[in-house]
């Protein structure tokens, strides 16, 4: 592996320790409690350089605490976390020089102008004035705030504030950008814009991004890797596609009435069916065997192969088994199903 040298703010040439490990963020057994409440429990994470990692979980799952630990805002109770190759507990200043952060709540000074706010931020990181001016121009173009830059922040809309925060997080050209719920509370239009900026940014430079979200579509759209976190623990992790694929292929939903017990027996005999479950129509809750008496039922069938060729045979099979199909629909599995599979709960978005 080649050694990468990194020039720090004081102009000294320092060796970049992250280039040896290959991970931008790595945690081992990271834990943090607040007054007996375990916010993060023995978390092991590995985030590769240049990737976008999404921590997905419901509110209160420990996402923000994880971000706070990794950004050196709070210290861990136990365990190890390295960010950009530096230990967050013992080398917080090196970590801070290499990261950009946007917090969940808007944290902007209302009485400063956008330009002044960015200027102050750059000064905190000891950027020269010329550099601050240059980068401000570039970033403001990226987040489309050229027209309002000299207005006080209190006149900004919610979406504009988020975009300004994103620009602020990027001003110091961080190697790792942390975004805590970057699009929460934004209208669809502004969410799309933030996503577009992030994608544009990643296409231009090698930046590692870790974001937290409780929006499945956000994780699915942006992330290279998704970590599902629940009650302070990492439940499962993988690429969005991989996680969804782990559920099998598409799901065919047959809705109808008839002899369910017999149909189930016949379904079990078919090799091209990976799994199935029976639920009362619309409930999604599995109905225990023996309670499938009268009424409308959904039969959700996981196919072992692509759905395209199996829907017709499946309907034929049902008709022959005495199950009258009223409706057929195809369901593509989503991260929601993944979340449900691993936590037993639904993630609402």
């Amino acid at each position: 592996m080649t050694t990468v040298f990194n020039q720090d703010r004081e102009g000294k040439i320092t060796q970049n320790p992250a280039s040896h490990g290959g991970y931008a963020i790595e945690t081992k057994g990271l834990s943090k409690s607040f007054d007996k409440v375990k916010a993060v429990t023995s978390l092991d994470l590995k985030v590769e350089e240049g990737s976008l990692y999404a921590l997905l979980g419901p509110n209160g799952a420990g996402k923000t605490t994880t971000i706070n630990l990794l950004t050196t805002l709070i210290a861990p109770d136990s365990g190890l976390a390295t960010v950009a190759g530096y230990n967050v507990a013992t080398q917080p200043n090196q970590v801070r020089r290499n990261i950009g952060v946007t917090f969940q709540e808007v944290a902007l000074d209302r009485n400063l102008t956008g330009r002044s706010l960015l200027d102050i931020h750059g000064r905190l990181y000891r950027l020269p004035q010329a550099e601050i001016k240059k980068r401000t121009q570039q970033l403001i173009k990226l987040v489309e705030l050229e027209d309002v830059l000299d207005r006080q922040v209190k006149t900004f809309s919610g979406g504009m504030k988020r975009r300004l925060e994103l620009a602020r997080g990027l001003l110091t050209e961080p190697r790792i950008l942390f975004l805590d719920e970057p699009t929460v509370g934004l209208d669809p239009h502004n969410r799309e814009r933030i996503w577009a900026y992030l994608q544009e940014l990643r296409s231009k430079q090698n930046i590692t991004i870790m974001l937290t979200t409780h929006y499945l579509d956000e994780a699915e759209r942006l992330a290279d890797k998704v970590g599902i976190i629940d009650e302070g623990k990492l439940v499962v992790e993988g690429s969005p596609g991989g996680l969804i694929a782990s559920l099998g292929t598409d799901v065919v939903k047959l809705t109808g009435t008839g002899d369910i017990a017999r149909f189930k027996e016949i379904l079990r005999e078919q090799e091209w069916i990976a799994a199935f479950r029976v639920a009362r129509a619309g409930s999604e809750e599995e109905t225990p065997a023996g309670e499938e008496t009268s009424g409308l039922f959904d039969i959700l069938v996981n196919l072992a192969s692509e759905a395209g060729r199996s829907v017709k045979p499946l309907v034929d099979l049902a008709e022959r088994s005495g199950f009258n199909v009223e409706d057929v629909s195809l369901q593509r599995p989503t991260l929601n199903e993944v979340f449900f599979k691993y936590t037993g709960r639904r993630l609402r978005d």
Partner: protein
Amino acid sequence: MATVVKKRAVTTVKESGEWSGLLVGIYTLWLKHMRKFRSSPVEILFTLATPVLWMLLFGVCMTGMVTEFQGGLGYQAFITPGVMLLTGLTAAILGGTTLLLERVNGTLKEYLVAPIPRLAVLLGSMTSGLTKAILQAIAVLVAGCVLDSTLVFRVLPFLAAIGVVALFCLGFVGLASAFASQAKSMESYHSLIMVMNLPVLFISNALYPLEIMPSTLRGLALLNPTTYAVDACRILLFGTKPEIGLLIDLVVLVLFMFGGLYYGYRSFNKVMQKIGA
């Protein structure tokens, strides 16, 4: 492992380059607060209004009652040090408000993840509070000169008096930071400050000499740093007969300043451990 984790970098200023980081941090935050102050004329007017009203209303009316003071000193000149210190106190309290607001609305987090020591956050807001205090104290001194002919402008005594104001204000900046760090809300902070504000002015020699006060009140006044600051300012500005003595005044004020700053620092650090919780 456990020992490594426990070692927090919040309070230590040992890492190389951290001293320059401290200075950069203090300067940047000071600059930010000053920009906000400059762009908010309302804040400037509001903080100047109180002392000017004191000088104009209270001072002018009392001048009618109090005819002769030590060595021909006018009443408005007499109360100028007290009003100057009151102004400084108000500014110190507003400095605490800034810290509290930034803590409550989350802007503090931006600094806490920046490569500056956390102490810089505290000192940045303290120095900006002190700067405002001194600017306003100067304004009061000028007003005193204009209103009362017995207060004559001389460079050295004025500078020395401003130095006394600085000591006094730093002590209160420390106390205000401590309250601001601990206060749960804006309301609780301000009610505490309101309660503190009046006795600081009235239980002192700011508006009347110590010798005419009842002995209990005089005893209480001697526990009030304002008394020492007023005495020192009068000695420096007018060369009046000391009520306490310049040396004792300065020793008490320096102790008060360190006490206040230390208390502010300790409270701030305690709260910083909990931030993000």
